[in-house]
């Protein structure tokens, strides 16, 4: 059952997973759940039991939860299920011929199947001052711990990037009494992922909580005093005082060791519907993998979300176990800021019509996206019924008219009875 990990001997596993985030952990759990009896190990750079990331920018940052409350499984689980956790090690290279990886500390680990679940790293700014102390990214527990520690006594925070991470952090900081300014280079928040109506709703939400939201604003440099951040200078010359800065400007997928080994990568590792890469016996899953999604008209997408990671983990387990792949469900995602819950299903990129359903002024509405007259995505704000029912519409690509979608007296699920 276990690998050949006798003292001094070479280590080798039937399934070696690189990365203990959602996708890597799901792969291991689904394999055991499916009755896989071979050896499994997860190698991870962090030195702790695997945990969920979403609470880091929400409850953890607010001080309402500790990491021990959102670990995937207890410490016993891994032992009982014979899943070896090899912590505190990064994988530096992959030898495709020898079927082994080389870690940063010089350990070689062999594999029959390699599952690359290495996620990504926070994109950094290149402006002067980006390396000052007090400038944070938010990706893992260590980041969140340092950031949360810096909030004690902090008065002013500047958040660079008006995406989900930046906005969730903004909400958490405001709730801790810190004065926050969000700087977004685009003309609206969440510009890459949603429509103007939803963007405007979020600007209003954050402004109403006292946050300053600056749109179409670039950062010239981060100013420091004694190597610690003291302010942020914008492109227009304006200087904002800051005790800390959070940079939330996207994620760079960790693919370099695989790319160097000859695995085809573009924006992430290219995989098929079973998460197989271009090299036999190597899979890639989660944030670092891109695949042709039927929900994006067959173009390659790389999604950074928990449900995507879970689906990938299950797909790999099915491929290794030679059981049927359950198939793809529409991608979904959520974000929680203050008491506002955004739930989104489907992929809105490439839509040609966006229908407003409900009243943004009442903080309860949805936007339904159509392509060629069929529903491809929904953004639902405090509208769980629309989200739950809208999943079906996206899954079926239901044709619908603007009139019926905008009519809140019509339940969305009643539209699914029409034959697409």
């Amino acid at each position, binding site marked *: 059952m276990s690998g050949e990990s006798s003292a001094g001997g070479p280590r080798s596993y039937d399934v070696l997973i690189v990365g203990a985030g959602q996708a890597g952990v799901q792969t291991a759990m689904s394999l055991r*759940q499916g009755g896989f009896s071979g050896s499994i190990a997860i190698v991870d750079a962090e030195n702790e039991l695997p945990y*969920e990331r*979403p*609470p880091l920018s929400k409850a953890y940052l607010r001080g309402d939860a500790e990491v021990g*409350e*959102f*670990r*995937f*499984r*207890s410490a*016993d*689980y891994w032992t*009982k299920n014979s899943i070896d956790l090899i912590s505190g090690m990064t994988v530096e290279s992959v030898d495709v011929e020898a079927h082994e990886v080389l870690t940063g500390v010089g350990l070689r680990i062999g594999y029959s199947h390699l599952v690359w679940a290495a996620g990504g790293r926070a994109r950094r700014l290149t402006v002067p001052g980006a390396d000052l102390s007090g400038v944070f990214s938010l990706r893992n527990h260590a980041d969140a711990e340092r950031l949360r520690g810096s909030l004690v006594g902090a008065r002013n925070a500047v958040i660079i990037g008006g995406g989900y991470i930046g906005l969730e952090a903004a909400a958490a900081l405001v709730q801790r009494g810190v004065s926050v300014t969000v700087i977004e280079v685009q003309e609206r928040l969440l510009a890459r992922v949603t429509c103007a109506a939803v963007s405007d709703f979020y600007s209003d939400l954050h402004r109403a909580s006292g946050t300053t939201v600056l749109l179409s604003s670039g950062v010239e440099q981060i100013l420091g005093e004694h190597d610690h951040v003291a302010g942020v200078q914008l492109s227009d010359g304006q200087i904002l005082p800051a005790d800390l800065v959070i940079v939330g400007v996207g994620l760079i997928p960790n693919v370099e060791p695989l790319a160097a080994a000859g695995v085809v990568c573009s924006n992430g590792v290219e995989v098929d519907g079973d998460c197989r890469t271009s090299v036999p016996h190597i899979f890639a899953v989660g944030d670092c993998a891109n695949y042709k999604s039927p929900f994006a008209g067959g173009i390659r997408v790389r999604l950074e979300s*928990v*449900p995507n990671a*879970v689906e990938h983990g299950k797909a790999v387990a099915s491929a290794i176990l030679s059981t049927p792949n359950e198939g793809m469900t529409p991608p*979904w995602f*959520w974000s*929680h800021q203050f008491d506002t*819950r955004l*739930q989104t299903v489907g992929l809105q990129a490439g839509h040609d019509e966006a229908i407003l359903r409900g009243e943004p002024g009442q903080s309860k509405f949805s936007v339904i996206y159509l392509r060629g007259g069929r529903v491809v995505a929904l953004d639902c704000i405090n509208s*769980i*019924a629309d*989200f*739950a*029912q809208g*999943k*079906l519409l996206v899954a079926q690509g239901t044709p619908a008219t603007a009139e019926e979608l905008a009519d809140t007296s019509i339940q969305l*699920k009643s539209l699914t009875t029409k034959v697409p």
Partner: protein
Amino acid sequence: MTQITYVSVDDTEHTVNATDGESLMRAALQNDVPGIVGECGGELTCGTCHIYVSNEWSDRVAPQSEGERELLSMMDDVRPESRLACQIRVHPDMHGFTSRISDHQ
């Protein structure tokens, strides 16, 4: 700590000592109770912590919110006693609380 029992689809009973204040979903995950997934972490988004709470216990826990009702209404195998485990917080009056895990997560 409050004693909580989860009954699996195959009638196996899993009794755990849950921390007061945490949700029934978290208590299940922390104690490796199979069948409760909790994919969205308690955000009322996934419906993968579907349990059945008998009448005997249902009035000892907080009632369903509108959101929980809306999400449950679209799930498979929903019954009047359906609940989402992430929405129920453990408290000392729940000692001996028993629920059945739905086959449809």
